């Protein structure tokens, strides 16, 4: 019950923040980009809140719990994604300005085709990310509260309440409200991880000793053998025939699969619309670059803690199952049948019902902050790139804002409807593996279709609109075809690598974009756009203006002080 109360308070708080921080001026710049005045630390925390979904909060510890060392590569791939963002995208993207990825590509390449194609790809990526988050919110409610409101089932209540709360936050608060709630949500997630790692260490638990003990015997996980669960040794993917060990590679991936996963995650981040849109909120390109440095530091700290919790869970659950009946019911031979229960079990073992509630709140926070960013990115794409540009080019600010808010409501309703159409009982045993898997598809799509075109548009003058369209279409087609082949192959051969095909699809997209660009005419005034994107004049103007404002404020305060003395 305390978990349920915590979740209700959380949802009410999200709605209240939206009302309190809603923008006072009615402009699309404020609604979509918080007036481009979000500071480095705030934006870094908000990007982390946006980026770290349920897949990161519960999925990383679960992956380490189930596969040991190989489970850590998921987290490494998620964190690695920001290095290409910093090196190739952050500063030039911000300096070029605009509102969204389609807006950037449309203006940079002078092409309606590039704009409309990227709107389609962006919506696909957002939907692939959004639906599993809505599903996750329903399942978290089901696990933590266990009953619905107003005669609705628990799962439906969770999906509807969380979607409504985030919809309210985004529609009223716009980017400003979303930024602040995401930043606070990330800090709460980090606090929950720090608390768990600290109480586990304070109980006398030694991470190195636990690792030595876990690595001293072959890794074995429960498998469902026609309704009867039994422990089965995990085969070593690097050395067929040999057993896998917790602290050694081979528990989950061969070298090809590992490379494919890392490339997919590392390339995907630069094409995620809800993350890239946040860079437009920085005041300058230099601030956008430094924001990424902070993000890499904060996300790295988060993933280190997630890995430690995965190690602790593997050792502690085994001991707890021997003398705690409710843990024993979740395990076979001392190992959790659903690895994603690792975090809730740790919370309950070290914090009782309040600890379980804290973990449930953390999981829901991770979901809510990600849904908020995705809804806003989708609204920017529909409201700004389609409504304002094509449907009603003479729209007033009020009409454009109404369109943006309408887009938020429609996309939220669509994602809730799709989440409700999924039978939750078929997913509850997989949660959040299904979240992590679908999120990986979003990364694959973004990394295959958007990132190569994005990097070419920023770093290669000859990129053209038709080239970008060809690149996005090729990347999407190759990624979908290879992913479908991987699904059909199931467990056979290179199926795992086919499910993360960016290693192949991104070069195909880049090759198509280059070939078609060379055969078509580049847009006019590339020099002007180059100067805007790679020059720093606008940054310097912004810094100068900020200094002037500070000097003016300082002078006014001194005059006020002197006047007071007289």
């Amino acid at each position: 019950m305390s978990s349920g109360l915590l979740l209700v308070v959380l949802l009410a708080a999200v709605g209240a923040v939206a009302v309190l921080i809603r923008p006072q001026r009615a402009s699309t710049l404020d609604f979509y980009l918080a007036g481009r005045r979000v500071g480095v630390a705030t934006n870094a925390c908000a990007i982390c809140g946006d980026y770290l979904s349920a897949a990161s909060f519960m999925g990383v510890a679960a992956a380490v719990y189930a596969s040991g060392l190989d489970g850590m590569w998921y987290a490494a791939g998620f964190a690695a994604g920001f290095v290409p963002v910093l090196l190739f995208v952050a500063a030039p993207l911000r300096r070029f300005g605009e509102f969204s990825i389609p807006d950037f590509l449309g203006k940079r390449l002078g092409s309606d085709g590039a704009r409309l194609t990227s709107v389609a790809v962006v919506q696909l990526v957002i939907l692939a990310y959004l639906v599993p988050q809505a599903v996750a919110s329903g399942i978290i409610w089901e696990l933590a509260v266990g009953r619905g409101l107003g005669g609705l089932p628990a799962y439906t209540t969770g999906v509807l309440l969380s979607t409504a709360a985030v919809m309210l936050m985004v529609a009223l608060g716009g980017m400003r409200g979303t930024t602040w709630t995401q930043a606070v949500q990330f800090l709460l997630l980090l606090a929950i991880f720090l608390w768990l790692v600290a109480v586990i260490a304070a109980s006398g638990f030694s991470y190195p000793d636990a690792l030595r003990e876990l690595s001293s015997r072959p890794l074995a996980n429960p498998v469902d053998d026609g309704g009867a669960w039994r422990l089965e040794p995990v085969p070593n993917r690097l050395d067929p025939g040999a057993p896998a060990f917790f602290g050694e590679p081979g528990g989950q991936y061969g070298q090809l699969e590992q490379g494919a996963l890392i490339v997919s995650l590392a390339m995907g981040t630069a094409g995620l619309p809800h993350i890239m849109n946040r860079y437009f909120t920085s005041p300058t390109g230099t601030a956008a670059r430094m924001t990424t440095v902070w993000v890499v530091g904060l996300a790295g700290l988060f993933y280190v803690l997630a890995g430690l919790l995965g190690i602790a869970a593997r050792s502690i659950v085994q001991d707890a199952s021997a003398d705690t009946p409710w843990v024993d019911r979740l395990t076979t031979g001392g190992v959790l049948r659903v690895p994603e229960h690792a975090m809730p079990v740790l919370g309950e073992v070290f914090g009782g019902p309040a600890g379980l509630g804290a973990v449930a709140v953390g999981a829901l926070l991770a979901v809510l902050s990600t849904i908020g960013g995705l809804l806003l990115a989708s609204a920017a794409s529909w409201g700004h790139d389609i409504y304002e540009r094509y449907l009603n080019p003479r729209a007033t600010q009020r009409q454009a804002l109404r369109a943006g808010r309408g887009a938020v409501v429609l996309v939220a309703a669509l994602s809730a409807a799709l989440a409700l159409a999924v039978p939750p009982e078929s997913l509850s045993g997989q949660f959040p593996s299904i979240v992590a898997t679908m999120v990986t598809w979003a990364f694959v799509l973004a990394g295959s279709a958007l990132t190569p075109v994005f990097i070419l548009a920023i770093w290669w003058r000859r990129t053209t609109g038709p080239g970008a369209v060809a690149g996005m279409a090729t990347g999407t087609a190759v990624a979908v075809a290879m992913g479908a082949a991987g699904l059909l192959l199931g467990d056979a051969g290179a199926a795992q690598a086919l499910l993360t095909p960016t290693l192949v699809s991104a070069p195909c997209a880049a090759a198509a974009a280059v070939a078609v660009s060379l055969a078509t005419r580049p847009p006019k005034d590339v020099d002007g756009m180059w100067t805007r994107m790679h020059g720093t004049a606008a940054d310097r103007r912004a810094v100068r203006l900020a200094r002037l404002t500070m000097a003016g404020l300082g002078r006014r305060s001194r005059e006020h002080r002197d006047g007071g003395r007289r």
Partner: protein
Amino acid sequence: MHDRHDPGPPAEEHDTPAEVDAAFRTLRRVALGHVAVFTGVLAAVPLLTGALAWWSQGRLFGGMSPMFAMTAFGLYAFFFTVCLAAATLSNAVEERMLGGPGRDAPRGDGPPAA
């Protein structure tokens, strides 16, 4: 009366295409150099397993092998270092090649200040 430290009204900031092109080429070298180091280290962590048994089976402290320590902690420190180095260098390049202190001073046809 103006404050002595008042930076004055903002001068019209601009970059010429030639300056931007030179800075762009330098920044491209910085990005490619750092991405090469990033890719090399990221690829080396799993690939060393096949070449060096100690990398995945040796023990540094407790049951932690060098590869485990690198994957669990080292990679994140490495990502942060690469990002910090690249950002610092890129900022320095831009500061030096675009809009340096000399550009802040008024230029052109006006008479020298009395």
